[in-house]
């Protein structure tokens, strides 16, 4: 057979073999067989002696062309095989990205503390100090300093847990006011404080009563603090907590430690003031009590009430949480049911 014919056949057969190689091992075998030192092309080169000298050059060129072709094809196939291998490996590594993640437990803030922290941040921004007093309070600080002497009828209004004749579980955070007033040095600037904390009343627990709850006391005293300042501050609190579109109203009220005393209502969230069962058809919901510090409270703490005056307010944090989040049973705050607590995570800001 003519060498050229042989070369033609080898080219065809070689390409077929390269293409048929299923893996790199087989491809290597084919490479050795075709272009290896003892491969088919080498064999053809060895057979050059049989070719007429004037054609050797042409045949040699053809052999080189076939070698180049083979090498090129081998490289391509090697690349393809490698790609296929990677693809295969990646396919093997494939995961279902829609399966859920592996989760550690997720923390959450208690709803009453959500309200507390929110208000603390608001007041700190306004220059208030956060102050905490004792929960086991003396009758002296809880009542007498707050203008509630022993026989004051308002003491019946709040049933108190007494420990002994002098010590009690505070029924209001107002005692913090007295303690701070006694200590404050007005030459160092005005007094602005909020006092958050637990308070206790001898109430049987039910949907709307709790023997323990959280209050925040606020107090601002200086030479020029007016009831208009109180009004502005209370409106800011109400709008901060319940939304800028809430209407507010102040009503005269009575607390022994403030005079004048007021309560603030906000327009009902449920009916927007039209009247519904939640607001007892009044269109208003009571949210807090406040007033101008009673001169007796100032004098009891050794402050000259003819010079200094100010306002105080008391915020019921549980009540705020109830109103803001639509909770219908105050006991839900104290049973620590994880299903209940988990829902407030998104409220954190």
């Amino acid at each position: 057979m003519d060498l050229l014919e042989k070369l033609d056949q080898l080219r065809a057969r070689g390409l077929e073999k390269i293409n048929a190689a299923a893996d790199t091992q087989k491809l290597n075998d084919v490479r050795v067989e075709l272009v290896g030192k003892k491969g088919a092309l080498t064999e053809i080169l060895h057979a050059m002696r049989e070719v007429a000298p004037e054609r050797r050059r042409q045949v040699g060129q053809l052999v080189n062309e076939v070698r180049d072709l083979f090498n090129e094809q081998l490289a391509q196939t090697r690349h393809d095989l490698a790609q296929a291998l990677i693809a295969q490996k990646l396919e093997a590594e494939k995961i279902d990205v829609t399966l859920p993640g592996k989760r550690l437990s997720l923390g959450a803030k208690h709803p009453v503390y959500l309200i507390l922290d929110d208000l603390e941040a608001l007041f700190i921004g306004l220059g208030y100090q956060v102050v905490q007093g004792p929960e086991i309070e003396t009758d002296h600080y809880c009542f007498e300093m707050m203008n509630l002497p022993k026989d004051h009828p308002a003491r019946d209004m709040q049933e108190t847990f007494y420990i002994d004749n002098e010590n009690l579980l505070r029924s209001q955070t107002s005692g913090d006011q007295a303690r701070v007033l006694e200590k404050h040095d007005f030459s160092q600037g005005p007094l602005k404080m909020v006092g958050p904390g637990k308070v206790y009343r001898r109430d049987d627990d039910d949907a709307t009563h709790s023997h323990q709850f959280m209050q925040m006391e606020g107090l601002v005293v200086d030479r020029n603090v007016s009831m208009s300042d109180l009004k502005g501050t209370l409106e800011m609190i109400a709008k901060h907590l319940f939304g800028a579109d809430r209407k507010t109203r102040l009503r005269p009220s009575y607390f022994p430690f403030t005079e004048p005393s007021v309560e603030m209502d906000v327009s009902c969230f449920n009916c927007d003031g039209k009247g519904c069962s939640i607001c007892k058809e009044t269109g208003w919901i009571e949210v807090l009590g406040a007033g101008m510090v009673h001169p007796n409270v100032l004098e009891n703490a050794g402050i000259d009430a003819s010079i200094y005056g100010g306002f105080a307010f008391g915020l019921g944090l549980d009540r705020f949480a109830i109103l803001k989040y639509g909770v219908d049973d105050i006991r839900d705050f104290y049973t620590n049911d994880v299903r209940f607590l988990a829902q407030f995570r998104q409220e954190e800001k």
Partner: protein
Amino acid sequence: MLVSYNWLKDFVKLEVEPHALAEKITRTGVEIAEVKHPATGLKKLVAGHVLTCVKLEGTHLHQCMVDVGEVDPIQIVCGAPNVAADEMVIVALHGARIAGNEKIKRGKIRGMVSNGMICGLQEIGFSDSVVPMKYRDGIFIFPEGSDIQPGEDVYHALGMDDYLLDFDITPNRADTLSMEGAAYEVGAIIDQPVKVEPVSLKADGPAWTSTLTAEVDAKLAPKFYLRKVTGVKITESPLWLQTRLWNAGIRPVNNVVDVTNYVMLLTGQPMHAYDARTFKTGKLSVRLAKPDETLTLLNEKKVVLDPADIVITDGDQPVMLAGVMGGLNSEVMPDSHEVILETAVFDGTLVRKSALRHANRTEASSRFEKGINWDNTQKALDMAALLLRNEAGATILDGVLKGSDTKRKPVTVKTTFSYLNKVLGTTLTTDQVVTLFNRLKFETQVARDQLTVTVPARRWDIMIPADLVEEVGRLYGYDNLKSTQPLLAETQGGYANFELFMRHVKHFLQGQGLMEALSYSLTSKARATLFTKAVQPVAEVKMPLNSSRSVMRQNLLTGLVDAASYNFARKETELAFFEQGRTYDHADGQFNEHEHVATLYSGHVYRNNWEHDEAPVDFYFVKGQLENLFTTLGLTGIEYRAEKITGMHPTRTAGIYVQGDYVGFIGMVSHTLTQTEKPLRNSELYGYELDLEQLSHYLPTSTQAKPAPKFPAMSRDLSVLVDQAQSNQSVMAAIRQAAGNYLVKLSVIDVYQGDHLAAGKKSLAYQLTFLNENATLTDDLVNEKMAAVTTALETNLQASVR
């Protein structure tokens, strides 16, 4: 108090409709909790004249023919026991609506057509507590002489077309617990004149005051006035009087009792009427009760009197608990002809305590305890006598017996216009302020900035300038005040350092995946001192609501175990809680409060794990969480000592010490506890509790930065075989001591005890990391240190090192 809108019109011209008036009063004076309109929802209720009434044999029913103002009388079958011919009654016609939105239709009863229903008062919406006793179990019968015709709507005659404003008063505004007081308040609010008329009374009987001596302790009863009337005919009161009482929530009884209640509603002065036969010895005294004296009250409650109760006596026996309620032994009876009327001012505090002590608060006692108008004693007495002349045919004997008659000076309060404006934040003129006081009918005297206000006795709540601020502020209108922020010297808001620290701990724990719990501070005596290393005397409340909430907790973990139990019972067992709060004790004779934090874990490290990587929460997981907390706080020198704490697992609990001081504990809740709590049975709860005040003492002050090390560290592994009883902590301490200062990190990399080791032995493997911050460490030096460690372990701990 329920204030009648229609009655109010007797005193003040009202051009504002009831609901708008209520809103005005609420914003300016007293909260109106509700405006009631008794006729609301009622329809087709008319007066009917029973023409004939035939009892149906063998039933309780009556066949009645009733004139309801139509051409022909209608037939109604009625089951009420007190229905009879010739009565004027309330008829619900066919198509009527009665209480509870119930519809009345023509129907048949026992085969007889009934064209409606004859009603009792409860059936048309009256509260059981105001219905006169004789109509309580039957239909209502209009008293003779009532101004109503058959067929006429009943609402007006029964006072149901009225609007009743529920004055939800605060203790300082008891002046509005009377129609006159309410009228003054409303007049001031709507700026209208108030017409309160004096009583002028001419006695028509002989003088009587010499027939009775009244010995009155003026400290107990500063004012004590009596009048006597004779020839009284006890009957049912006229309808106008009854409607005013029941609209105010008071049950009509008879004309004498009703008159005293009416006068109280009108003037705010509580009254009492005695059967004059009570004082047949001619003596009366007002004194404190003697020990063991008893009195049966009008409501048939027998009380053992307390030496702090004021009583009125017949000279010997108590006949009335002063200011609270009369005694049965002096009650006005159907056969009473002579009546002694009393108006008095009693000591409010003593009356309040009496009413509380005997659980017998009344309309009268609630007025005395909040204060009454000292100026109304005479007027109320005369008014009652006058009404008894009109309504009970009484003859009024001449003279008022005054057992005591303490005078009170009118209160004057001095202030300045500038003070009023400063406190309110207003710029009111002198005229504006004076006009407001004129509306209140307070006399004013003005001298430039000085203002002197004379306060009438009916406003005994006003005593100091701040009270005047309130009057001016509320009448000017809180709505009209500006809304401003205090303009004060700058203050820096913020937390005290310890408050910051507590909040940092809370935020960190929340970030670690713990849910914040909030528990009650009061718990049972037993639980209060669980989980407490050094139990202190407890703080216990005197009158607990129940024994499970009687003692202030000395630990927080109790609350979290309760929370776990609650959640386990609801099949929620994957828990990670923390609580930050106080513990309380009574150590060293004083009450102490300590800020603590506690955590509780149960279930698994991962939640909802489909890969079955079910690592349960265990001691070491929780300890790792705690160690991270300590690291983030920068605490060093922490030591864990196996320790027994009540309530905790005895061999899985450690006391935590910082620089030698106890700060808390970590471990597993004891089986004893979880086995006795049904939902927690067989569960493993882990947690820790820390005293944050203790911890705060060891917090580093501030960080002084140093550059990251320039030289590489070198690590060596070490395997140590020791007795099982030997703690890791002791091995590590020995390694640290021997390894010197270049040892910067020491970690446990393996713990093994089991088949391949000798009995009673365990193998601990450590990685030691050495670093010299100033130079490259040599192998030789590290080898030297490792050799020293080996020697130390072998000699001091009898360990073998591999």
